[in-house]
């Protein structure tokens, strides 16, 4: 067996199969109503994560040994119609392999951490089902070789994120926040789907090698014109903005902290929040083609960074402060992508993800340590003047998180809900009139929750 076949027949499939099989087993058993012991779940999760980690490391080693910068694994044409093709293709290159390694490493670490953190929690199995779905989604999105495959991973990540925000489901607040997160994700998904279809239409297929040029990342040259690159790139930027909580969608990030700390760490500190930046890195040949797109990306990144810095400066709880700190760095990474520092952005992304995971996981015990310290010295620790240096107006702006949520609520959500509620009332009247006297609707219009 030579290096080539070892990469395409063993390592590549293992990277993909490890998280997918784990999700299929855990999800299938949960669906059929079979509770599993905590130890078994943990062992399965760690084993799958480790297997994927080793396979992706081996892939990296083999690529370095074979001086290969681009390994494509094709599983054939999933759909083959005379004028429509969907390929299942995965690509291992300088961008996808580090992110796949990072995904396995962090998901396994979080799985191990959560074993103790969520011990005897009623939703223990549910957490691991969603974590395995997330791991599968991250790995699929990382190594996707076509825009449709990337979309699949993207959706898996979105669904698992939203459901984990609602993990503590006895309280209504996590559910409400999960819904908000999901709404933003759906809008971002819609943009990605449109971008996928546009790319498919313009290049004949959704294959990145064809749409973004055949060279190894990031040296590909897209065959799309500057105008088409701008259109597709803008849709992708919109999708990335939703997923990575860039301005104006940043409001969901602190809300997502309702989930358990391990999921906050891996989703909003490390992986999920960087997926938008990863998408921009993956389609960087489009950026090279359009200066306007580069300016847009840079401006959005910088605006997000400044916004997150200001909002983070006045946060009073550790998870919110960390989430804004994370967002501030994501903004910088996006700006780096915009100005063309692709490798710097990738290294920044990897380093930031590891550091932020550590900070998130340390957060609960840090609070306990502070309490012990205060008990030991018999007085409060000196308080930090959070954001006192800001002017009153800037302080209010930061405290209200830039009024972004209020703005979206007033400009989009409220008119939408009011319009459709008015339609609902009119429809009920019309139905009552049609049904004749004495006939009442089986349900009453009430407040929207």
């Amino acid at each position: 067996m030579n290096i080539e076949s070892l990469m395409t027949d063993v390592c590549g499939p293992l990277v993909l199969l490890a998280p997918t099989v784990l999700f299929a087993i855990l999800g299938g058993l949960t669906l059929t109503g079979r509770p599993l012991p905590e130890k078994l779940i943990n062992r399965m999760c760690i084993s799958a994560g480790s297997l994927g980690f080793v396979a992706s490391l081996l892939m990296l080693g083999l690529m370095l040994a074979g001086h290969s910068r681009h390994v494509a694994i094709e599983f054939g044409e999933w759909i083959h119609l005379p004028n429509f093709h969907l390929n299942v293709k995965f690509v291992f290159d300088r961008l996808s392999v580090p992110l796949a390694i990072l995904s396995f490493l962090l998901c396994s670490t979080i799985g191990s951490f959560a074993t103790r953190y969520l011990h005897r929690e009623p939703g223990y199995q549910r957490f691991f089902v969603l974590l395995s779905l997330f791991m599968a989604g991250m790995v699929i999105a990382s190594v996707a070789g076509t825009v449709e495959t990337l979309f699949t991973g993207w959706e898996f990540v979105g669904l698992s994120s939203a459901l984990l925000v609602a993990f503590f489901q006895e309280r209504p607040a996590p559910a409400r926040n999960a819904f908000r997160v999901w709404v933003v994700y759906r809008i971002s998904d819609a943009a990605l789907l449109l971008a996928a279809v546009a790319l498919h239409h313009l290049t004949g297929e959704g294959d990145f090698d064809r749409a973004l040029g055949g060279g190894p990342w990031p040296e590909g040259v897209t065959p799309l014109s500057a105008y088409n690159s701008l259109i597709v790139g803008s849709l992708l930027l919109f999708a990335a903005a939703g997923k990575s909580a860039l301005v104006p969608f940043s409001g969901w990030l602190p809300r997502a902290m309702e989930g358990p700390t391990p999921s906050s760490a891996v989703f909003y500190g490390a992986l999920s929040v960087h997926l938008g930046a990863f998408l921009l890195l993956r389609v960087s040949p489009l950026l090279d083609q359009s200066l306007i797109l580069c300016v847009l990306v840079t401006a959005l990144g910088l605006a997000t960074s400044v916004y997150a810095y200001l909002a983070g400066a006045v946060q009073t709880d550790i998870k919110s402060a960390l989430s804004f700190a994370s967002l501030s760095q994501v903004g910088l990474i996006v700006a780096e992508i915009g100005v063309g520092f692709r490798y710097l952005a990738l290294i920044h992304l990897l380093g930031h993800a590891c550091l932020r995971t550590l900070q998130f996981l340390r957060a609960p015990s840090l609070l306990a340590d502070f309490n012990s310290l205060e008990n030991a010295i018999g007085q409060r620790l000196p308080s930090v003047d959070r954001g006192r240096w800001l002017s009153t107006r800037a302080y209010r702006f930061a405290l209200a998180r830039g009024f972004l949520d209020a703005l979206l609520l007033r400009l989009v959500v409220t008119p939408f809900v009011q319009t459709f509620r008015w339609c609902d009332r009119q429809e009920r009247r019309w139905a009552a009139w049609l049904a004749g006297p004495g006939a009442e609707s089986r349900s009453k219009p009430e407040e929207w929750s």
Partner: protein
Amino acid sequence: MTASEIPWVELAISLPLIGAVVTGRIRDPRRAFQAGVAFTGLTLALSIAAMIVFFTGTPYYSLQERLLGSAMFRLDELNAPLLPLVALLHFLTCVATPRSKMRRFSVGWSLTSESIRLAIFACQYPPLLLALLVLCVLPPVMELRNRREPVRAYAIHMALFVVLLIGGGAGLQLSGKGAFAGWASAAMMLAILLRCGMAPTHTWLIDWLERASFGNAILFVTPLTGMYAAVRLVLPVAPDWVLNTIGLASLVTTVYAAGMALIQNDARRFFAYFFLSQASIVLIGLELHTPAALAGSLSMWISSSLSLTGFGLTLRALEARIGRVDLTRFHGLYRRTPSLAIAFMITGLACVGFPGTLGFVAAELIVDGAVVADPVVGLGVVLATALNGMAVVRVYLLLFTGADEPSTLSLIMGPRERFAILTVLALVIGGGLYPMPGVASRDRVARTILAERAVTVPGAAVPAAGH
């Protein structure tokens, strides 16, 4: 006797009628229900056999040809998988009927409706198809009357449907391609729009789904009978402007209904609007009349029917446990029925074309076709699916999260419900992972329909051979 000597299609259509007579004579609801399950199961087996005989190319025996000289009920590539689909929906709905609903779910009427529906989906003779479509509107009247619910809204809409259908059908038959053909097509188009519940004529559909027993309500709408009528009666002969009007009405309906589904506070009404939005997307493919979009539309038809039935069955199972489900508060049901929660989520997301499910490829095909034909249509479809996805998760969160109400009552799914819902899930996920055979078959159908249309309608586009 070999398989080719058995009149499978005729048997599949007539067996439910025999079942209706037999179960009508059984007084005990439980025994009637058991007989109903047996008859629907046998019908499913017969329709699957008919499909296998068709796809294997075995020459099959037609009782009609022998008796009448021509076969009015027969299979082609379009309806060969639809017949088992309709039979499966009836079988699963019957199987999943909880004990508490056995008295309310009329097995006799359900079997009668199944027979009519199978006859519609097997019929290729337009005048008979018109008659069957008219006949199909009658069982719901009996259902509403039996439940002492007002019939007027339904009756007004269906009376209009029948008038337009017969008028349009007669006009098309008599005038051929003459001066009245346009008017006849328009009448037929309005009939189809009415039957499919396109806005603003959707009031009857919401009313029906709100007032009928959930099982019968699902069965009446989810096979998308109106779509079959559109493909058989309108698509081959209608001028482009008729299809464009259907497409426009469907586009408006899909976005409007998706928005309405998102703000509903009652699970039945939510399901009604959600169904309407998804069903409208299927019709949009007709307007685009390109092979990819039409293949997507036909694929979406099967995936939507299956997923929406599964979704409806999970809601029905919930209704059987906690009564009418209101969406103004959190119910916290996950802890007591986790399997139902997962099934709800998967079937709901399958309806909106979530990756890994049967609807994904169909949605991709429709959106691709729509973007190519008209970006506004593509945008509308994507917007509607995004809103529907939001609506599914909103309802999931309202039903399954929140404080758990202490109760000694077990809400775990029974074995029959589990079987029905797991069957739907297996098909939805299995079809999602291996979609090629189904999609290729729908693509062939789409090309055949468009080729026929190119012959009958002057100026209609001829499907390209591909590249």
